[in-house]
């Protein structure tokens, strides 16, 4: 498979076309905005946390296929997980995207999200894929400033 096919896999294109949990969540008790000044991608992540567990998570915004698919997959992966697991997954995904994951073992730690591993061959696109994750992190931390990938 070429690097390009690796990047735009069927699953990614599907999440781009029909993003999951793509909605405003009125019941959210955490939310944050993320912004990529390089390309103008914007995302808002909504989280409903109860007793340290992510009961519900959704997102809204505009962005490229990579950022949308990454956000969509993030929400499906994190729903029902404890907050601490979200942080750990963020770290592992980040390592995978920047190519620091150390091959096969790295992919194991991120489960289905390994489909995003093709991004590390496209350094200019790493920020697209990581935007929603940074935003989720600042939502959980309750930060006031919008998350940035810069």
């Amino acid at each position, binding site marked *: 498979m*070429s*690097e*390009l096919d690796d*990047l*735009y896999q069927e699953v990614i*294109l599907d999440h781009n*076309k029909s993003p999951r949990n793509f909605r405003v969540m009125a019941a959210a008790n955490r939310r944050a905005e993320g912004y990529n000044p*390089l*390309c*103008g*991608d*914007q995302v808002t992540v909504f989280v409903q946390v109860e007793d340290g567990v992510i009961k519900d998570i959704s997102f809204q915004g*505009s*962005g*490229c*296929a*990579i950022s949308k698919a990454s956000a969509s997959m993030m929400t499906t992966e994190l729903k029902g997980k404890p907050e601490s697991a979200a942080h750990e997954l963020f770290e592992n995904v980040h390592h995978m995207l920047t190519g620091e994951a150390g091959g096969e073992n790295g992919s194991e730690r991120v489960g289905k999200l390994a489909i995003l591993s093709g991004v590390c061959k*496209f350094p*200019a*696109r790493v920020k*697209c894929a990581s935007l929603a994750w940074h935003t989720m992190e600042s939502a959980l931390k309750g930060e006031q400033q919008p998350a940035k990938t810069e």
Partner: protein
Amino acid sequence: MNAVPQKTDAIMALNKFDVARVRQDFPILSAKVHGKPLVYFDNGATSQKPQCVIDAIDHYYRFENSNIHRGVHHLSERATAAYETARGKLRGFINAGSVKEIIFVRGTTEAINLVAQSYGRAFIKAGDEIIVSAMEHHSNIVPWQMLCEQVGAKLRVIPINHDGEIVMEEYERLLNDKTKFVSVTHVSNALGTVVPVKNIIALAHARGVPVLLDGAQAVPHLKIDVRDLDCDFYAFSGHKMFGPTGVGVLYGRAELLEKMPPYQGGGDMISLVTFEKTHYNVLPYKFEAGTPNIADGIALGAAVDYLRALDWPSVVAHEDQLLRYATAALERIPALRIIGTAKEKAGVLSFVFDHVHAHDVGTILDQEGVAVRAGHHCAMPVMQRFGVPATARVSFAFYNTIEEIDVLVRAIEHVLKVFG
């Protein structure tokens, strides 16, 4: 807009303008990207450099490197002469009346900041108004916003229509007794619109209001004559006109520059310094504090020599042909929408798909060796005006070819194959 390019036009343009020969002057154009020939369509961001410009930098550091305007030794005299010769070439390039009016700066951004901070802080007061257009680059918005915050002035914005043209009636309505400055682009970087700057200047001058033109995107495409334009300031960057990065020019009318305070203080911009009082140097040095970018200034002079040796009418005809051919070709692609359809355009073709983000377009084109810009082009208000987050932008230089546009079209077809 739907005019199919005439073959005879193409032949006429190519007869006078030998693009294959011109391409040999630019070493990087023979590069391969991802195993494919580079198709460089990101000239609006920065242009490529001809061998003579690269040689000028090399020659300076090998044979002339020395500080200017201070040494009495041989090398310093040579470096000073080379640098001032370059200033003279730039004067000729834009037909300024005097080399006193040619201020070397880092680029367009610094030129506009210089005017905003020097002219603006001295002559624009609380309650005054500054007019820009809705299609400015951030570098012609933010310096004025900063000034407005500092002095309590107000920024007014001329709207643009759906083709990306200035709405002149709205501009006339905005002009009033409080208007103290007009700063507009000559050619839009995001849309390619050639702005009717002569009308804009005439209307401002009728009220005694000075006008700055952001010429960053105009200098590589149009012949510039600042006296014919009758502008008060003209700002442009070297690196977009086949010269090096890190050097540009602010042209200013001498009588305005004379009454403006210095922008930065330091060496070279003074004639006498004591702890009681400092006397500033004469023009243009009053605005050139510190050791300048000597090598790149000299190399920008080499870029001017290169441009002046080209037959300019045939360059314009060739670029016009590229734009018309590309516009017609892209209009035939289903679901593709061109952003920026002004009657008068130069060098830029921005487009979007409803279902494919510009960033994804950019990545896939890159895999085919085609370099375009994908994003907001430092003109976020333009993106908001057209309701798009970003566009893919093809921007031409005279060394681009019709065949390269065919490669672009095939690459876009590949985008549509991936995204369905």
